[in-house]
């Protein structure tokens, strides 16, 4: 049986003819998926792309798609114990070949947009272009990435650490609104969790983590494009029902370079990013766990002064007591701070911004 063929548009035929110096012929399925893999993956990892290509929506399969062929779709599950894991959805028939063929006009239009984005992205990543005659062409401004870390003790500008109410035996309301009795601005390992006691309906510990970042060296005229808040986690626990999550919130400690007990009450309840479920947090003491900031979070990154964020359990943020279970915890039970030696595990915020002089934008009709 001859292979199934695509029927490319005139532009594709022309490109194919130019490249291979042969007659314009339809392209074989396998070759087509190979040639268009980058744009296909870019499309497949969007909500619209998932819908268009009949893939599971991101609400059901949040993993990134790393390979798409006419009958295979691979999802990247992550890294554990130094090994990478994927899940592959394989079909006997050429499901995605058939879907793309039947929705060719829509798919082709979407791929055109994603090709343009990929080409622009590559252009911006190029250090510089050297022309054939030796002249150097510098790319236009845009897409600058600045990563900021809190200072270790002795702090210069920013601090990180946890503030907790520990070794108590009291209700959720009291432990949440009480006075902190353990503050670790200079601890190498800290926490952000809720722990229950053995006494029914009572809790033993509640910790909140605070981290400050200094982006004030960036010119205030820059445009903030996106940001992620990232931490490494050593151990976690998820002992309550409903299952736990960790929120990213703003903080307002009394000092930028130290933490005190009163800062326990200086944690906001407005979420600066979607909560991260404890189940989705990688606790291998190596991998960074990222909260992608929403518009509110991005607004709270200051280019003139210190930006102040922190973590608390979603039970704590939402003031929603979980179903009490004896002697369990939920949240981040151990995480490294900027106090650790080396530079690979410090909490960080990654801000992508662009100089206001000229920001390229592509409008595709």
């Amino acid at each position: 049986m001859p292979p199934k063929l695509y029927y490319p548009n005139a532009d594709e035929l022309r490109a194919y003819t130019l490249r291979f110096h042969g007659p314009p012929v339809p392209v074989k399925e396998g070759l087509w998926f190979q040639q268009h893999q980058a744009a296909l993956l870019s499309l497949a990892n969007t909500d619209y792309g998932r819908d268009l290509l009949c893939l599971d929506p991101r609400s059901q399969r949040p993993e990134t798609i790393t390979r798409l062929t006419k009958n295979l779709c691979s999802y990247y599950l992550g890294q554990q114990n130094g090994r990478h894991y994927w899940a592959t959805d394989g079909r006997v028939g050429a499901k995605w070949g058939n879907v793309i063929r039947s929705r060719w006009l829509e798919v082709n239009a979407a791929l055109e947009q994603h090709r343009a984005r990929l080409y622009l992205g590559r252009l911006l990543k190029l250090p510089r272009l050297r022309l054939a005659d030796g002249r150097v062409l510098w790319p236009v401004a845009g897409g600058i990435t600045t990563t900021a870390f809190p200072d270790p003790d002795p702090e210069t500008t920013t601090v990180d650490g946890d503030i907790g109410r520990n070794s108590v035996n009291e209700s959720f309301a009291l432990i949440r609104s009480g006075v902190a009795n353990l503050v670790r601005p200079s601890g190498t390992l800290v926490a952000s969790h809720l722990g229950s006691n053995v006494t029914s309906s009572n809790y033993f510990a509640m910790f909140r983590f605070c981290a400050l970042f200094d982006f004030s060296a960036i010119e205030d005229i820059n445009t903030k494009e996106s940001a992620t808040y990232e931490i490494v986690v050593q151990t976690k626990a998820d002992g309550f029902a409903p299952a736990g999550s960790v929120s990213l919130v703003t903080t307002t400690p009394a000092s930028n370079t130290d933490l005190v007990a009163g800062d326990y009450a200086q944690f906001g309840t407005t979420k600066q990013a979607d909560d991260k479920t404890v189940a989705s947090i990688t606790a291998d003491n190596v991998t960074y766990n990222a909260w992608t900031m929403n518009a509110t979070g991005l607004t709270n990154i200051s280019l003139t002064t210190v930006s102040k964020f922190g973590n608390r359990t979603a039970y704590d943020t939402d003031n929603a007591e979980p179903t009490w279970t004896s002697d369990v915890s939920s949240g981040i039970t151990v995480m490294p701070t900027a106090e650790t030696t080396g530079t690979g595990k410090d909490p960080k915020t990654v801000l992508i911004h662009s100089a206001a002089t000229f920001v390229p934008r592509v409008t595709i009709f």
Partner: protein
Amino acid sequence: MQTDYKVARMTRHDDGRVEVVARVYEGDVTTELEPSLDGRGLPVPVTRYRRTRFLRTVTLSLPDLPLAATEAQVRRRLNDELKKDTTRTPIVEQV
């Protein structure tokens, strides 16, 4: 006496330039009581490197760092900065 650095800020420009601001400290390995992490929070002796004093800020950019420098290249360059100190020993993680 030992010395180490911590990166405070790293910027990757769209033209490939990398700017790094690092802070250099002096300290030593000491044993002090710290709250335990077993949930009780009781003080236990912990032996580790502790910074005692901020020394200086180091800013690296072109030509200290190559275009599109990798994090390994940045670390090597910062390790070289620590070696310039003749009175202090770099911590083992940053030799």
